[in-house]
């Protein structure tokens, strides 16, 4: 049910009964390698195109999450998925394979939490017993979609980010044991007029601020309510901007409790410039790494704020600024 202006609370506390993270060879070299369910050594994943490889990542993540939930495909009532490709083909084609009633969603890199929020809403409103929320990205298919051919060897500035090759999925259920989705805040588009597609962290930070502010206002929570506030893929650049913006706007989240998935996934590797990005970034770090630590009892409540830059190659070539969005989902331990 709606609370405040743009937030939902879920009184039935839907449960995340299954979750999975699949990664590629570069993710396998990162500090979070152990938190993936499957890591592929080959960027092509045995396929003959990057797009097909991404689709396989997504299918594997969905199947793994369903399997870990102890369910079969046909028991899942709805699937919500999206990705970065034109017409969200990775999600559409994966849904063809899975044959689960499907709704495609697009929130760029915010898709992970957009899906989780909607899945929790469907379950909480008793519209479904089991809902699958999934998303994926692939470094090479994203480079092809948004930037230049990789063979072109185009330079990138230090504010650029590295698209994660990976997919994450979760199964949300009306009963069972596991972490619980208790609230969500749906973001508004924030566009500060940034036009540089190689500085998406900087462009998205104000959107994350807007959603975080709205979340605490709508739910009337104190700023230290969460043990961890995590943004999706702001990277080092966006993380430092948001760390400055939060106190300026009197959102006094203790900054040592604020982390970013884009900084966690590759550690300090300078090859990735500002950090990781892409739908797979927030999804794999949240479903693979954060929820694993969460289940081990490290935290009681976390707020995941997935950020998305809703640009297209055509819009930025025509000089349009980058509309950004962030969706926040609150996850709590079973015992609370």
């Amino acid at each position, binding site marked *: 049910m709606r609370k405040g202006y743009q937030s939902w609370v879920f009184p039935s506390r839907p449960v995340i009964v299954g979750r999975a993270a699949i990664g590629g060879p570069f993710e396998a070299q990162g500090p979070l390698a152990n938190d993936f369910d499957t890591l592929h050594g080959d960027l092509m994943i045995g396929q003959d195109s990057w797009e097909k490889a991404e689709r396989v990542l997504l299918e594997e993540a969905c199947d793994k999450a369903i399997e870990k939930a102890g369910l079969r495909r046909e028991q899942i009532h709805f699937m919500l998925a999206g990705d970065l490709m034109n017409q969200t083909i990775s999600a559409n084609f994966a849904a063809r394979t899975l044959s689960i009633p499907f709704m495609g969603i697009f929130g760029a890199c915010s898709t992970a939490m957009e899906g989780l929020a909607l899945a929790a809403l469907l379950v909480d409103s008793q519209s479904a017993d089991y809902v699958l929320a999934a998303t994926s990205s692939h470094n090479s298919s994203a480079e*092809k979609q948004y930037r230049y051919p990789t063979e072109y060897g185009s330079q990138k500035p230090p504010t650029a980010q590295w698209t994660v090759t990976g997919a994450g999925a979760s199964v949300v259920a009306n009963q069972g044991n596991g972490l619980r989705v208790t609230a969500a805040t749906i973001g508004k588009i924030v566009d500060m007029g940034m036009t540089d597609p190689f500085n998406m962290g900087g462009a998205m930070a104000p959107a994350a601020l807007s959603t975080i502010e709205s979340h605490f206002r709508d739910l009337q929570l104190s700023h230290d309510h969460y043990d961890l506030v995590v943004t999706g893929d702001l990277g080092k650049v966006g993380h430092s901007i948001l760390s400055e913006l939060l106190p300026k706007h009197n959102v006094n989240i203790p900054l040592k409790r604020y982390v970013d998935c884009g900084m966690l996934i590759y550690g300090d590797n300078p090859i990735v410039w500002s950090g990781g990005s892409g739908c797979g970034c927030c999804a794999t770090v949240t479903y693979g790494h954060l929820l694993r630590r969460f289940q081990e009892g490290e935290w009681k409540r976390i707020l995941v704020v997935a950020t998305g830059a809703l640009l297209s190659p055509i819009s930025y070539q025509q000089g349009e600024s980058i509309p950004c969005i962030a969706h926040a989902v609150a996850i709590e331990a079973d015992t609370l």
Partner: protein
Amino acid sequence: MTFLWAFLVGGAICLVGQFLLDVMKLTPAHTMASLVVAGAVLNGVGLYEPLAKFAGAGASVPITSFGNALMKGAMAEAEKDGLIGVITGIFEVTSAGISAAIVFGFLVAVCFRPKG
């Protein structure tokens, strides 16, 4: 000394390219086209040839020399055939470079099946 000047002049041209990319926020394609046009303009005002003589590979290797070559070809043919020579001459001098790009591009694509 020849090497030093080639290094400095070639480096300066690349610095201009880097400036266009990083500060002027031009796309890589725009940067490349700008340098080609700059080379053609410098030839037009009679500056590129002396620069190439002075700096050697420093001026003949960067992409600006392609603009210079286009202009040179066009002007040479224009003297012979008039206005139509401008059109035919553009590819007269540069055909080796363009054909090489096509042939090597084809060979690399056959061997490595690029997918980016």
